[in-house]
């Protein structure tokens, strides 16, 4: 049976930082700009806004993907392990985190012009967190997990 490698302290700190970014700081900013929200606020949102949010949250995942790809451009760098899983996880992580942020900020009554920016930041953070889990739990063949 293969022995699991204990993550380094730096790795754990980076993971904690990303989780704090995802779960704490950005929703706190959204609540900071909060105004009283009405009960039927979500029902009153036009369909186009949902489409825009879908695109914005995908952009966060895309930004995470491009950020990682740009790190692997130098010839000395290793190739991305499991590229399909990596891209899917990035996009999914960004998508989920972006929608969570959208609902939180809409409920909090965050000013409209800031909502999509917060969605992008949160989805980028979500993509980064999921990416690290992929790196951790999907090691390359012959490599310790």
């Amino acid at each position, binding site marked *: 049976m293969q022995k699991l490698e204990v993550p380094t302290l730096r790795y754990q700190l980076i993971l904690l930082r990303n989780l704090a970014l995802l779960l704490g700081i950005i929703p706190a900013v959204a609540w900071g*700009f909060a105004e009283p929200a009405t009960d039927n606020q979500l029902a009153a*949102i*036009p369909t*186009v*806004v949902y489409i*825009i949010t879908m*695109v*914005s949250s995908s*952009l966060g995942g*895309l*930004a995470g993907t*491009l*950020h990682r*790809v*740009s790190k692997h*451009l*130098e*010839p000395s760098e290793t190739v991305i392990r499991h590229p399909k899983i990596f891209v899917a996880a990035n996009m999914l992580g960004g998508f989920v985190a972006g929608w969570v942020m959208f609902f939180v900020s809409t409920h909090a009554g965050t*000013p*409209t*012009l*800031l*909502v*999509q*920016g917060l*969605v*992008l930041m949160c989805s980028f953070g979500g993509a980064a967190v999921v990416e690290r889990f992929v790196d951790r739990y999907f090691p390359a063949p012959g490599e310790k997990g």
Partner: protein
Amino acid sequence: MRNPYTALGALKLYVCLSAGITGWMGLSPTMPMPHLLAFSLLLCVAMVGLVDAVVNDIMPDHYEAAWTAEYRYFIFVVLATGQLSVLHATVVGEHEESTAIRYALDAAAAVLVAVLDIGLRRHHAKTRSADPSLPADPA
């Protein structure tokens, strides 16, 4: 245009100018603080993108803005989100603009620049690994 970097440079210039104009037109002393903050951020990021387009694409080769070239994809994703934010505000009636479709098209163009930039850099990195005498980054 045969050189893909020239076409990308022209598109970059357009996207940054358009986003900069959107940010500039949105600034008004009567606007609430969050709106001023959003438009100021859009204007600042558009200026950074403009610096990248002018220094790395138009000026002679010995002038270089390395940081903006390295994080270009992120600058243009942020610009796309900025345009989508203005589109969001236009749809819900908080920002008056008759040509909302322009924001959607500009956002699409900004995403195209971000993806093409990484694609071209990846292509160039592969070419350079085959022929090390090529320059580091033509963009």
